[in-house]
């Protein structure tokens, strides 16, 4: 079976008044039905990667190198009708802010039905019954009444459920979730996470879950890829990353949490700020903030070390497990 997702040496550059090297030489693969969390802080290139997967980046200002294959389809070469069939059919996306991602002037049922009609060529009535079924599947109570509601009549959690129903209506093989729980409050976050996990099992699709919350990543995914400054610095199963994070950035992220912190003590944080991405990285991007950095780190790009199968760390010192702090 072909891999669900295969990204090879993807580099994305935004041209304009100032050039931004948003993604630098990213490679990533996923098997069918896998759940991958893409973990990283703001501006590390998570969302850009997702948009590239859907071909949503503005073509005029973007320079894309490398290859992206989804189920064997070369995504970057798609255009016109084929691209429209691929978007929403093969891959679809749940956005961060459900209040903004639903069109305020149409009922939610209409919006789901519209996507179904577009892909399956069904009549409006059939599409509406699929929309109703989808609202049921995302556990929206009294779905047939909600079908005729406008987005502003629903709560945040409901809207995100609708967004998920919309994304899944055409049974995509790969679901991209761009921080789907960030805009929601804590109790609703848990419900949405559980829902996504159940739906993933039910539909057997692959999910890429973008988040900056390591707790969320652990909860939902089998595998984790950590991004920093447009690169994947570490990749492995969730257990490997949590138990044995090798990259100093991953270790910093894991250390920087609120648990077991005594009152009045300063919180653990990674010193410094992420680099500006105006030039192509020539050395390890994390070196300026890294407590273990040596001269070699600043001289050249770090080697990618694979301690075991499907596990990668982009760090010079990853070979020998580092003494924790």
């Amino acid at each position, binding site marked *: 079976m072909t891999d669900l997702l295969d990204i090879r040496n993807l580099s994305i550059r935004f041209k304009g008044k100032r050039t931004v090297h948003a993604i630098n030489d990213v490679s990533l693969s996923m098997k069918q039905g896998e759940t991958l969390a893409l973990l990283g802080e703001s501006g590390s290139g998570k969302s850009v990667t997702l*948009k590239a997967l*859907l071909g*949503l980046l503005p073509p*005029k200002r973007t320079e894309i190198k490398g290859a992206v294959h989804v189920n064997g389809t070369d995504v970057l070469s798609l255009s016109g009708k084929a*691209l*429209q*069939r*691929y*978007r*929403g*059919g093969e891959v*679809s*996306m749940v*956005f*961060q*802010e459900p209040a*903004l*991602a*639903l*069109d*305020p*002037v*149409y009922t939610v049922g209409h919006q789901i039905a*519209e*996507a179904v009609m*577009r*892909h399956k060529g069904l009549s409006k009535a059939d599409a509406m019954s699929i929309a109703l079924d989808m609202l049921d599947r995302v*556990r*929206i*109570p*009294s779905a047939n*009444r909600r079908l*005729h*509601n*406008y987005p*502003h*009549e629903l*709560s945040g*959690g*409901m809207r995100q459920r609708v*967004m998920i129903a*919309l*994304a899944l209506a*055409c049974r995509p093989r790969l679901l991209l979730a761009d921080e789907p729980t960030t805009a929601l409050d804590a*109790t609703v976050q*848990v*419900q949405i996470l*559980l829902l996504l996990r*159940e739906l993933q099992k039910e539909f057997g699709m692959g999910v890429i879950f973008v988040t900056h919350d390591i707790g969320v990543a652990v*909860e939902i995914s089998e595998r984790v890829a950590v991004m920093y400054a447009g690169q994947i610095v570490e990749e492995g199963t969730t257990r490997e990353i949590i138990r044995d994070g090798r990259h100093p950035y991953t270790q910093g992220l894991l250390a920087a949490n609120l648990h077991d912190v005594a009152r009045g003590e300063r919180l653990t944080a990674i010193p410094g700020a992420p680099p500006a991405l105006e030039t192509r990285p020539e050395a390890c991007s994390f070196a300026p903030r890294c407590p273990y950095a040596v001269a070699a780190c600043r001289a050249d790009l770090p080697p990618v070390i694979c301690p075991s199968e499907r596990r990668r760390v982009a760090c010079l010192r990853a070979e020998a497990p580092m003494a924790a702090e």
Partner: protein
Amino acid sequence: MALMETTPDTLSAEPVPAAKPQGYWAGVAARLVRDPLTMLCAGMILALILAAIFAPWLGLADPYKGSMIARLKPLGTEGHPLGTDEQGRDMLARLIYGGRLTLFIGLMPVVTAFFLGSALGIVAGYVGGLTNTVIMRTVDVFFAFPSVLLAIAISGALGAGIVNSLVSLTIVFIPPITRVAEAVTSGVRALDYIDAARATGASAWTVIRVHVIGNVLSPIFVYATSLTSVCMILAAGLSFLGIGVRPPEPEWGLMLNTLRSAIYVNPWLSALPGVMIFVTSLCLNLLSDGLRSAMNVRD
């Protein structure tokens, strides 16, 4: 994992509003009905339009037939409830017949400009780049002139007449509508649901037709209704200056001009066309305010 298993959905406790499937326009209508001032204005405008349309069947005097002996009769004269003008023509008939031309010239340019300006603005806002620059800078040229001056200049260049004043007023109102349409469209284009629509495989045409137009039309529409009163005043102004409707056609602006000389003889009479213009444009303004608040559901 230590997380709770699927808990009974707490969302189900949320009360469901009764009598739901209610469309957007039904909601707007319901809010309008509850607004007495707007309803009053809408009623006035409707009455004026109906009176203008059905003027020949209202049993009025002939608005063109003058009388040398019955000139400038005051209000309340037997047979002429609103008096007669400087040529002895019945004022009531002329005011009602005058509504035909005045309202037509006052509303038509805005309607035409609404379609043309929206199309230009939506294209400029959605396509962006060079297209936007060309359209918007061209439109900006028109902002260099005050609207009255522009209307007079274009009308003057085209010559007097109803069609020419329609054309000149349309040209005057395209730029402001285009500008509003462009601003709203470029705002909408940056929103997530446009990306979301594209992410579910909508073509550029579907995105514009369904998601852009659906969201920008109501603000443009509300803005356009606020222009109708200005347009009516401008139209009357053109006629007043003699470059719009030509005598003996009854038209409020023109009547104001011809009755101007009678202001010392019979001031109330000469104020009547002005009162009509004032009341109509006031009603149009209040109506557009009411529409705006009724259509704004996202507060």
